């Protein structure tokens, strides 16, 4: 049978014939009445007249014959015509929409049974007299498959149809059909679906607008559906470091009433927490809450999972992934100052003016030799909680600063080991100079010396007074802490304008792995380091070998009217030390957070040298780990931007991919970065599997249609449809033949015959 992909199937409609009698020349009623009165009067007179001369029956017979003759004459005046008509059915326009979204590939009821789509196909195509053919006799069928939109298909495309639509939008698909038939109104629409709407507007009220009845056929069996679905996860997009965050999980169960199911919270495959949830009602949602405290800044892929239960129809909705970006709510800085000083005072002002810094400071206000002359209750001094700070609370800080502070009087060396571990595990430490700092503070041969960027001398030459100007090294010109202007020239100029320091700790050498940012630019201590940084373990450290830092603030105010360079430097120093993501030497970016299967993934890598100049010569090792942990090595190519590289690959597998990049320059390791991206297919369709016949029922009711389950659709569905759509069968005349009776000889002979019989009877009865 020929089918047009757009116009639908061409079905030859049935023909039928019928006879009809019509009158071509109708007479006005008044004429018929007048003729009737005249004929009636005449015939009445004739009966009265003949009864006087003959028997009554004879009078009636003769008059009856005359009546017939007159009637025939009058009939001839109206031109009676017999019509022989050949009729053809007019098909009722009907759109049939078959859901081809992914959920239609799920079993009707039990795992292993036929799919919902197959159930739908069977409704239309099964048996010797498929319903589709039966309906095509009475209806002008237009077939569509639909997912997010409706697409016209031919009848021969129904059998091989596959369920691959990424989402289901019934209302949009109906609109598409209405739009196509805006000039030729449809009699109705049949929607065949499992009722799961995963896109667009699910409000069925919109179906009223078309005014076309929608008959819905529900596929799948909601009563026998069994599934456990992680229905929703409510978690913030970002959380703050060291602050607990609640993750609300909504679980919905079908067919597992009374069962306790385990829930697992994972971070990139690692179990963070578990919980049990009782499904105490069927088809009901239950909630569970996980509480976690992020320990590290970054972007993480988390998932909530529950094991697949026996008999579950849909397995892909037992896990739900989400991303959590961990930021610092505030950068927590602990400053321990050996004594009140301008260095402390201006550092405090700078840190306090930074809204992202939470500053806790302790200043040694009084030494053992100081005499206060008053009872303790007249002093505002508080205990220096060394034990708590350096054993329990240290990990809660991001940055520890020793400002001209010697530990010797206040806590044992054991606490210095805690500080070393704190840095090794990712904390930041800075030491500012002065007469109680570095070697003068007793830090030689302690764990602090190990983490400092400079080597401490056992017999140090102490603190040198006198003016010294800090000169930036080439590394300092590029380093985020000391680069105070976009260009090296401007940075150099700013530093030349900075006031000299009036003292510094000297005779200290930078360690080989340290990066010296500034050196003494003049005097006998020429080129000794003044500012240096180092990576130690996972953390960073800074040594600033002077307690005259404040002069770059206040004396610059006197000289130039502002202190923004100082504030900028403190701001950058804190952020570099605590490894703000934007200051990482190796930064990995993807063009999107998530990809659809088959899309291209573009990765961009920005690499900076230790001095923060672009590391164009860096050698990168880029490894992409697929969801099963298999490694894929991907080549990187330099871009036009110095220090920037690019890599591209295809998203060919579903799941979360972890990208790790490691950068080296010569024998130096510059750093590494990690990124996670996710490849998904049809997320919504893979989450929802329960047939939703209620939506179909409401859709039908809202449009004055009717809902059927698949088993209710039988061979008589056509007449049911006509009833629902309020459409009787309609025909058109394809051929017609007319027989005008007054033009036939037989009609004339009948008239003559009538008059002849009357004449004969009159003669026999002796009437005139």
């Amino acid at each position: 049978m020929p089918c047009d992909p757009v116009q639908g199937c061409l079905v030859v409609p049935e023909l039928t014939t019928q006879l009809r009698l019509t009158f071509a020349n109708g007479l006005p009623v008044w004429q018929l009445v007048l003729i009737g009165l005249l004929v009636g009067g005449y015939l009445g007179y004739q009966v009265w007249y003949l009864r006087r001369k003959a028997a009554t029956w004879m009078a009636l017979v003769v008059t009856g014959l005359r009546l017939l003759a007159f009637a025939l004459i009058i009939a001839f005046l109206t031109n009676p015509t017999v019509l022989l008509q050949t009729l053809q059915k007019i098909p009722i326009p009907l759109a049939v929409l078959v859901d081809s979204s992914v959920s239609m590939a799920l079993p009707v009821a039990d795992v292993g049974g036929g799919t919902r789509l197959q159930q739908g196909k069977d409704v239309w195509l099964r048996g010797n007299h498929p319903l589709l053919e039966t309906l095509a006799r009475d209806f002008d069928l237009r077939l569509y498959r639909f997912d997010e939109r409706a697409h016209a298909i031919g009848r021969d495309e129904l059998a091989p149809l596959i369920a691959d639509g990424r989402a289901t939008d019934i209302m949009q698909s109906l609109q598409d059909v209405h739009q196509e038939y805006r000039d030729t109104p449809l009699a109705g629409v049949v929607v065949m679906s499992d009722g799961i709407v995963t896109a667009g507007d699910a409000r069925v009220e919109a179906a009223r607008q078309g005014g076309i009845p929608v008959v819905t056929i529900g596929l799948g069996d909601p009563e026998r559906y069994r599934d456990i679905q992680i229905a929703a996860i409510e978690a913030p997009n970002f959380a703050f470091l060291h602050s607990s965050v609640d993750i609300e999980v909504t679980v919905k169960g079908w067919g597992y009433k009374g069962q306790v199911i385990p829930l697992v919270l994972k971070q990139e495959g690692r179990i963070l927490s578990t919980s049990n949830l009782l499904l105490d009602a069927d088809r009901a949602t239950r909630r569970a809450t996980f509480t976690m405290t992020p320990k590290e800044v970054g972007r993480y892929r988390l998932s909530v999972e529950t094991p697949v239960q026996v008999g579950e129809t849909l397995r892909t909705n037992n896990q739900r992934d989400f991303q959590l970006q961990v930021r610092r709510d505030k950068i927590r800085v602990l400053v321990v100052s050996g004594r009140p000083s301008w260095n402390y005072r201006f550092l405090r002002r700078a840190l306090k003016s930074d809204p992202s810094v939470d500053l806790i400071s302790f200043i040694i206000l009084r030494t053992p030799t100081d005499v206060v002359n008053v009872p303790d209750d007249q002093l505002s001094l508080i205990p220096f909680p060394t034990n708590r700070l350096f054993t329990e609370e240290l990990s809660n800080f991001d940055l520890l600063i020793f400002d001209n502070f010697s530990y010797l009087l206040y806590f044992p060396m054991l606490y210095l080991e805690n500080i070393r571990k704190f840095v090794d595990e990712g904390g930041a430490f800075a030491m500012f100079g002065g007469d109680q700092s570095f070697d003068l503070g007793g830090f030689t041969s302690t764990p602090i010396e190990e983490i400092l960027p400079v080597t401490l001398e056992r017999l140090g030459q102490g603190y040198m007074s006198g003016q010294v100007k800090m000169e930036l090294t080439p590394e300092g010109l590029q380093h985020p802490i000391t680069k105070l202007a976009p260009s090296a020239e401007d940075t150099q100029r700013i530093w030349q304008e900075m006031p000299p320091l009036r003292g510094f700790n000297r005779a200290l050498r930078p360690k080989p792995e340290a990066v010296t940012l500034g050196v003494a630019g003049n005097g006998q201590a020429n080129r000794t380091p003044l500012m240096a940084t180092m990576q130690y373990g996972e953390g960073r450290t800074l040594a600033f070998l002077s307690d005259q830092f404040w002069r770059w603030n206040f004396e610059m105010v006197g000289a130039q009217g502002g202190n923004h360079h100082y504030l900028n430097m403190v701001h950058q120093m804190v952020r570099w030390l605590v490894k703000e993501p934007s200051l990482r030497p190796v930064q990995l970016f993807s063009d999107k957070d998530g990809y659809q299967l088959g899309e291209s993934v573009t990765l961009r890598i920005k690499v900076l040298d230790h001095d923060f100049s672009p590391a164009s010569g860096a050698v990168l090792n880029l490894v992409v780990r697929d969801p099963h942990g298999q490694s894929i090595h991907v080549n990187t190519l330099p871009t036009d931007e110095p220090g920037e590289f690019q890599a591209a690959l295809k998203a060919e597998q579903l799941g979360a991919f972890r990208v790790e990049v490691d950068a080296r320059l010569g024998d130096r390791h510059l750093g590494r970065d990690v990124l996670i991206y996710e490849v998904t297919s049809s997320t919504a369709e893979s989450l929802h599997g329960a047939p939703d016949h209620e939506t179909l029922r409401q859709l039908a009711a809202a449009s004055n249609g009717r809902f059927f389950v698949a088993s209710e659709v039988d061979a008589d569905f056509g007449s049911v449809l006509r009833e629902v759509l309020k459409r009787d069968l309609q025909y058109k005349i394809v051929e017609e033949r007319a027989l005008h009776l007054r033009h036939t000889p037989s009609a004339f002979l009948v008239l003559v015959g009538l008059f002849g019989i009357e004449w004969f009877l009159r003669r026999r009865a002796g009437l005139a």
Partner: protein
Amino acid sequence: MITRRRFICHLAMAAGGILPWVQAGAGSPRTEEPSSPFVFAQVQYRGGDWDPHPSAPVELLKEVDRRTSIAVAFQRHTLTTTDPDLFSYPFLYLTGALDFTPFTDAEIATLQRFLGFGGFMLVNDASGYRGSPFERRIREEVSRIFPDQALERLPFDHAVFRSYYLVRMVAGRRLVSPSLEGITIDDWTPLIFCQNDLGGSWERDHLGNWRHECVPGGESQRFQSFMLGVNIVMYSLTENYKKDKIHIPFINRKLG
């Protein structure tokens, strides 16, 4: 058995960071001159008498050194408001009893920058009575430096009254005013004005005797005057440190 180090540590915590002795041995800090001492800088203005109590600053500095951990330079530094090194001395002391020549507009602009970007000035009225020519002049000059703000009394929960000692009265040579006045910007008070002649209460003669009697409280009043002086120096170096959250419960407990 408790180790000596642990014992010292416990003592440090119990005594508020104060230890009765210093650890000896190879690890001891070297005896160094303070690397960055506090300098008491006094403003030398034109007209009037800029230096009514020449020895007062040194006496205060001795007490600051004796009582606190602040490293001080024992000589005061004098300078004018046009001195190119003005911004090397964030603490300024301005005192007098008489009227003086108003600051020039340039000097006012400099002081605005000085006090607006973190500098501190202690103004001391040495006259010992209310409404002195110095007081009138200083109020006028302050209104030029801070045209949008007026001198206001500092409440006793201001950080200057608890920066070291818990000070409950504003002492001086004379009790002219029960409170300090100041200009406060945000939560920082860069200028404090005392009418009770603090300098007079600190001053000694060359034989070491107190030069002025403190009226009416005598030596107790002088003692309080030094406590306030120490607190003012401490406040200039630590700002609102004592208003940090961690200090508040301790201080409130002591204040009852």
